[in-house]
């Protein structure tokens, strides 16, 4: 593991009094390798290493404390702080009228499943009513997929025929207002950030429904490309957070750091399995541990 690797490197410098550029150089090389193997974007890795170097430099090595341990602590703290504060932000519920939540992201990231999970969490934790909205009109049986999840949860699913996704969403919000449903979750089609027509479409959904939360749903095993798609979605949508899915796998999840860096938006939730209860708020320290390996 990185911690062991760095500890053994820096043990030989015990007794030098300070962490210096020379004695942290090897350790930082280890960190760089660990981050790249974890799929953290190269540019993000470089910026992170620079920050760690600045923080570590000149730190007094406290009597009796292993410099390696100090180094690991600096790295871990810096990464944890980057990933977000200790408490994930709670959902921003609307003051009056329905709270609108928009789910967007690349194909296959886990949006539809996450709509079901988020609905389940909101009902359980906040005791609010939820309307699921099937606005993916392009994938075969996407509407059916959300209807099955709605049936499993005993929650209504809004569907329309002969309408564009922005109109379906607008109608769903109007229905929620009329029926006094607390929360509306909009499931949208997966799309490429380089598909201008579809990026315009999802921006239109956002413009016409004025969501209180806009989540980028991102697969934890995404590699270097995470920065490209995240930046594009962040440019076109008023993102309020990121949901990282499939964290029950063994991908290190470096995309989390890349997405956080490039959008500045916090990771709010994580998907931990296919079932609807496999969902949790994001824990920055745990993610830092996982990325460092």
């Amino acid at each position, binding site marked *: 593991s990185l911690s062991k690797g760095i500890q053994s490197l820096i043990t030989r410098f015990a007794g030098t009094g300070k962490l210096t550029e020379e004695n942290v150089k090897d350790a930082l090389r280890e960190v760089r390798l660990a981050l790249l193997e974890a799929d953290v974007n190269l540019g993000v890795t470089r910026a992170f290493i620079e920050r760690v170097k600045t923080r570590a430099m000149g730190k007094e090595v406290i009597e009796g404390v292993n410099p390696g341990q100090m180094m690991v602590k600096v790295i871990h703290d810096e990464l944890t702080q980057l990933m977000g504060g200790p408490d994930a932000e709670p959902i921003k519920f609307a003051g009056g009228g329905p709270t609108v939540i928009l789910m967007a992201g690349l194909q296959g990231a886990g949006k539809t499943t996450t709509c079901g999970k988020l609905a389940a969490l909101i009902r359980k934790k906040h005791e609010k009513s939820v309307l699921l909205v099937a606005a993916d009109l392009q994938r075969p049986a996407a509407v059916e997929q959300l209807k099955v999840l709605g049936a499993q949860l005993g929650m209504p699913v809004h569907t329309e025929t002969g309408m564009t996704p922005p109109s379906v969403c607008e109608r769903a919000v109007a229905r929620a207002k009329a029926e006094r449903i607390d929360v509306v979750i909009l499931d949208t089609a997966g799309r490429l950030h380089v598909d201008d027509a579809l990026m315009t479409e999802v921006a239109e959904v956002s413009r016409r429904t004025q969501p209180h939360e806009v989540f980028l749903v991102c697969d934890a095993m995404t590699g270097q*490309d995470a920065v490209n*798609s995240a930046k594009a979605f962040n440019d076109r949508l008023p993102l309020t957070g990121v949901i990282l899915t499939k964290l029950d796998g063994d991908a290190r999840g470096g995309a989390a750091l890349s997405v956080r860096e490039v959008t500045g938006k916090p990771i709010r939730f994580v998907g931990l399995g296919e079932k609807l209860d496999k969902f949790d708020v994001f824990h920055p320290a745990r993610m830092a541990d996982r990325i460092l390996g």
Partner: protein
Amino acid sequence: ILPFGRDLDADLVDQLEEHLYSADIGPRTVGKIMEAVRAAWKNRTIKTTDECFAFLKAHVKGILSGESTALRRAASGPTVVLVAGVNGTGKTTSIAKIANRLKKDGPVILAAGDTFRAAASEQLALWADRIGVRLIRQDKGADPAAVAFDAVEAALSSKAAWLVIDTAGRLHTQENLMAELDKVKRIIRKRIPDAPHETLLVLDATTGQNAISQAVEFGKVLDLTGLVLTKLDGTAKGGAIIGIRDQVKIPVKFVGVGEKVDDLETFDPDGFVEALFE
């Protein structure tokens, strides 16, 4: 990526290394490739950026070529293709694309082997309808091995040319689901000793280094004969497959370049490498 016709210097070589990383080639494989580049530069085999590019492209093409992209055929009777991979990579969509291609070769049957996920068989049923092939399916929650068995029987009795079996997405870290996949394979093999003749692992081009673990771990349970690399119509380069070739000799047979039925290409190492260095 690098300015044309310039003499190589340390900065340019570093820039090149960065580009390799951004394509998801991964530290280990980048290290090996850069070692070769630096050695060639040191012994003056390559001196300019153009020569460096030519060297690099040839080097990577060398890693990726040399294997057939054609699907294996059964000596007689239906050829059975089993498709697997982690969640959301594009298995079901790729099956529809591949089946559509195989149609002109003889009757194709599809099997809805994902009996777990919401509307999984409905999704494949819509595709089967769209491309005009027969689908074998059972109720949600049925044993996938039972569906596979049914499908093999149907393929044999109807003298189908091809049987393509869809499976549920699963993570290679889920032991019970990997065991389920093994059971599906064994059931097929019991009925047709040489089957599955082709076992394809579907990988998402946006996936990073975890793609290597996927290929290695799925390869422990299945005799993988090919990879399908999807979503190459995005900006991800799919460079993880180079690292995969380092560890397991599984050739890429198809690439997915979109969500429509015709968005499938036979893997072309030259085209892939050119795109890698764009």
